[in-house]
């Protein structure tokens, strides 16, 4: 009797303990998931801090949304660091983040100079990162670091988009004026390459200094070449001069096809009516025009962040979301997360499709074309030029 009782009790208690243990596990996981750290770096102070804070908030939004999702396997904590848009500070912060083994991956950098300075750090420490705002091609293309990825486009994508748009509009012959800095030379290189593939012809290329005042000699030569369009790779100050001096030489029936370098209010202010019909481009897009822009703006507004997301906030959100997805899939392991990120193909995100090439660069990044219309930069697709109501200079 006592033996049987004791046995029954033992079975019962074993069962109870066992059951209890399982119940504890199940409830325990639902209440307190494992914590995973992810990182964010951007310029949170200084001249470009508006973009940095917008990016930080947007990445934070991705983390908050994931933490609120009951299906998420982990609970995430984001460490946000300030690179001040200075390469030396950026390298320190990147080292700090990468040296913390608990940090699995990070969305990093708005400033190109910082991003290019930090890639070696991430490579050395094996921390997978996704650049969310910097546009210099070299960040992904100078090295072939499996750690480094980028969701936003570069001047390569920008110039492909540019060449495609103007070719489609019927422009076949171009003269190129570019400044001889890395910026202008890069634009010249990528535009010429993209245009050659589409069958366009460059009749003459003119390198100019970035503070040149007089372009009459170059423009007179261009006049003799008689191209349909002038491609300009440089910044606003000389862009204004070139366009104004084109007018002086009677070159008003030639399209002025420029780059992100002149996409500023100062260009339009500096030229007044002459700015009309100039084309420019940016890597990225106004947030409301992105595929997931509306969703993003609603969620962002609901969090009551003190600063707006700015132009690249949606890209920071997309970068962080890709990281969180990878951690969900592979667990908190840098190498596994990196392997997943390296195989991102045709993934939907709020900034459109994301496909990383073998350098980690998103090859289908959003580029937006603008045309100066009535003293404003208007998104090309919304303009009267695209609608056919007006014609660009020299358009047939």
């Amino acid at each position, binding site marked *: 009797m006592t033996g049987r009782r004791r046995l029954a009790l033992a079975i019962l208690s074993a069962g109870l303990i066992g059951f209890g243990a399982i119940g504890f596990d199940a409830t325990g996981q639902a209440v307190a998931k494992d914590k995973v750290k992810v990182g964010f770096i951007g310029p949170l102070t200084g001249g470009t801090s508006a973009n940095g804070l917008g990016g930080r908030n947007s990445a934070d939004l991705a983390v908050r949304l994931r933490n609120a999702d009951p299906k998420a396997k982990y609970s995430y904590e984001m460490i946000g660091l300030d690179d001040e848009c200075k390469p030396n500070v950026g390298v320190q912060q990147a080292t700090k983040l990468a040296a913390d083994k608990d940090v699995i991956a990070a969305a990093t950098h708005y400033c190109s100079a910082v991003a290019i300075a930090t890639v070696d750090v991430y490579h050395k420490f094996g921390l997978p990162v996704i650049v969310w705002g910097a546009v210099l091609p070299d960040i992904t293309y100078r090295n072939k670091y499996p750690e480094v990825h980028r969701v936003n486009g570069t001047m390569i994508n920008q110039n492909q988009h540019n060449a495609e748009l103007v070719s489609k509009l019927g422009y076949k012959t171009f003269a190129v004026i570019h400044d001889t800095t890395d910026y202008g030379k890069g634009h010249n290189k990528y535009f010429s390459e993209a245009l050659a593939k589409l069958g366009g012809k460059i009749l003459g290329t003119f390198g100019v200094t970035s503070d040149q005042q007089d372009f009459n000699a170059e423009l007179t030569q261009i006049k003799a070449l008689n191209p349909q369009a002038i491609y300009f790779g440089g910044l*606003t100050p000389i862009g204004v*001069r070139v366009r104004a001096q084109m007018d002086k030489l009677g070159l008003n029936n030639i399209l002025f096809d420029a780059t992100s370098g002149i996409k500023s209010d100062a260009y339009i*202010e500096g030229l007044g009516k002459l700015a009309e019909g100039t084309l420019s481009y940016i890597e990225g897009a106004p947030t409301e025009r992105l595929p997931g822009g509306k969703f993003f703006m609603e969620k962002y507004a609901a969090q009551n962040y003190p600063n707006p997301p700015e132009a690249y906030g949606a890209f920071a959100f997309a970068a962080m979301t890709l990281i969180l997805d990878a951690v969900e899939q592979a667990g908190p392991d840098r190498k596994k997360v990196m392997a997943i990120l390296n195989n991102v193909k045709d993934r939907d995100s709020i900034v459109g499709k994301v496909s990383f090439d073998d350098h980690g660069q998103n090859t289908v990044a959003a580029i937006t074309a603008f045309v100066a219309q009535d003293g404003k930069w208007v998104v090309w697709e919304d303009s009267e030029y695209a609608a056919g109501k007006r014609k660009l200079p020299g358009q047939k």
Partner: protein
Amino acid sequence: MDVGLIAQFAMNGLMLGMMYALVAVGFTLFFGVLDVIKFSHGDVLTVGAFAALASFIGLEALGVHSAALQLLTMVAVSVGAMAALGAVVARAFVLPLRSAPALNTLLITLMLGTVLRESVRLFYPDGANPKPFPRLLPASSLGIGNFNLRLDNMILLVAGILVIVGVQFLLNRTRLGLAIRAVAQDEETARTMGVNFNAIVLVTFALGSALAAFAGVMNGLYYNEINFGIGLYLGVVGFSAAIIGGLGSIYGAILGGFLFAAAQTIGAVALPFASAYKDVFAFAVVIALMAWRPTGLIPEKLSERV
């Protein structure tokens, strides 16, 4: 090459040469009377151009829309204000350093130039951005093949020639010019002959600065755009032009200005490696000319430095 294109290049070169010559004449005047280099000269040009722009905006605000009246006021304000500025600079920075080494004058005016330039950048509203300069001259043009002859360019060119002729007349045919030449030749003798040395120095600096202001307005009307950096480059070019012409000689400065513009235009057009190197070519020509003629193409007639 097509004749129309050659004419176009020549026209562009003449316009550049005229602006360079006006700046170079200023350098040569200052050097003539006081044997000093005033490096803020280019930035005085910038301030002059911005003064003209500000007076244009003021007139628009006052409801004066007549282009001729606006132009006259702009030139008057700019030239008057810069003449005053030039005299003040001479009084405050150049004359007190009369007995100090000439290098000190060069340095103090170099720094003053930076102050002027940065002041325009910082204190003119949105001064860091390029500013549109009004088109006040008739814009009609005559297209002859590839040559686009613009009426406004012709007016600017003629105005520039008239100013230079006027300066020549002032220096060679008036009592004031005689006094300036006397001081330039021999300060002490001029003093003993009753020339008010300080007054002549101030007048000369006012005259040179007024020329810079005129060049600034001309620059604005020609390019229809001004920015805080225009004077820096024009200053360096004007100085080089004055040197190759022969510092102290008015004709030399004019010749130097046009030579430099010609070198630049040839550099941009005729060289196979294109326009990126046109300044390299032009300044190389300056170096070559200086090596060939160390005192300039038209040296100062009476060199009395002992």
